[in-house]
């Protein structure tokens, strides 16, 4: 199993990562090395073993519906490069 440059381009787009051609080529070869590592898992048949997404059995943990002090708005905005009128300024979303 090996990955093409087109597939790297596609995945980078999905992951919202703008990469240079050089980076994509380097990434492709590292990915292929890792896929070589994964080939053993790919070929195994675990029958009906249930996969688990967590090491431990966790059920939905609910918080009590009790109002508490939220994070202060100024504090919440203080790390944004652009904030205005108590809001985060988001880069323009353009319709294609």
């Amino acid at each position, binding site marked *: *199993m090996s*990955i093409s440059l087109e*597939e*790297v381009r596609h*995945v*980078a*787009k*999905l*992951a*919202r*990562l*703008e*990469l240079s051609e050089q*980076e994509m080529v*380097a*990434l492709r070869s*590292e*990915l292929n*090395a*890792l896929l*070589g*590592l*994964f080939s*053993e*898992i*790919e070929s*195994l048949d*675990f029958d009906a*073993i*249930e*996969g*688990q*997404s*967590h*090491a*431990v059995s*966790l059920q939905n*943990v609910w*918080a009590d519906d009790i109002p508490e002090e939220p*994070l*202060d708005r100024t*504090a*919440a905005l*203080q*790390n*944004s*490069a*652009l904030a205005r009128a108590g809001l*985060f300024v*988001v*880069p*323009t*979303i*353009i319709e294609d």
Partner: protein
Amino acid sequence: MPVDRTAAALVRDVQSGQLTPSEVVRAYAERVARLGDRLGAFLWFDAEEALAEARSVEERLAAGECLPLAGLPVAVKDNISTRGIPTTCASRILEGYVPPFDATVVERLRSAGAIVFGKTNLDEFAMGGSNETSAFGPVRNPWDLERSPGGSSGGSAAAVAARLAPAALGSDTGGSIRMPAALCGIVGFKPTYGRCSRYGLVAFGSSLDQIGPMTRTVEDAALLAEAITGHDPKDGTSVACGPIRPDLSQGTLRGKRLAYPTELAGEALHPAVARSFEQALERLRAEGAELGEVSLPSIRLAVSTYYILAPAEASSNLARFDGVRFGPRIEGSGHVEAVARTRGRLFGHEVKTRIVVGTYVLSAGYYEAYYAKAQQARTVMRREFLDVLARCDAIVSPAAPVTAFRLGEMSADPVALKMLDLCTIPANMGGFCALSIPCGLADGLPVGLQLLGAPMQDEALLETAHAAERVLPPVGDPPLN
């Protein structure tokens, strides 16, 4: 001298009035000023801040408050949120980010009278095993400045090993506390998954991450663990039980059944590590431990399983870094370009590689072949280990298959570096508790012994480790002036 004392001894000295928190802080701050830059261990350090905290601890002591970590300087890995103190995860995408809140573990440290003593360097977003992927420079191993301290908690490990701080916090997703602890000759403890709150830890692999103490002795690790662990309502994966509270005086090796895996012995190890490990086992046997070899074939799948699951989780967790709510923003013509450009330019190479791997194995057409399979492999591994742990007190192995390697040595072969996580990954896969303790030197470099216990057996694990520590050869201090 305060810098020669263990954390537990320092706390006792402060509680009894023999030392003041200010004296302790000054002693360590002087060492940081002298050696900090050489090691690259800290990303942020402010002696005046630390002294101000020391003075407020003195006031609390004078008012009669009982403080279990009175005046103890604790260095904190820079992926753990500290209110008012920059937290960068060693990444340019968080350059200038100052959290408006403390992680629960930091809150608990402060409430116990400890002093946040700088933020330590790490592999970017905790992704790495050598502390070479930090955007702000590598960390150097105090035992040999041309060598890596291991990763990703390399800064914390180097700081404690070089006595720049008596204790530190690290985080462990695939071995990031235990492996650098081994390479730097200190103790590194990863609690059972869920016993230590992850609230405020910048998430990498949410089902794998745990915060834990990095210290000079097991007693010190237990002291910190007791202060920071225990249920936290702010962490939905937090186990509903109290803090880890071992009784180290109960620790004994007599009659303890210790299993060592075939797959983590012999050829899997560098010869010097294999020798040290065998000698360590002999010492444990001489003290009455019953050693037995077991085969855990799932270990052979550990690295591939981890490098499918961890990047997958990371690709989701790191989606939040888009330059909008925190961190620098790079402009682009429109939302998608701005976000992609910010991430492309400000994330480092290893982080981008892992995000791409993670996105790939989760994408349509590949999910079944990789991610779903890896989840099954995880179940197989956990069951296999639980089966062995039902018949023994702990699984013992080296914490790393090598001693500290040269900086740059592993860059040519990224897969080889990942293979070094072989000994440590299973504990994260299964949520087990595990720690690394020094077991001697090999060619002048520290070797770490790992003990791994069943979930929720943290107390028993620490007690056994304390007994083992007493009979294993101490590594002493690195040859630093």
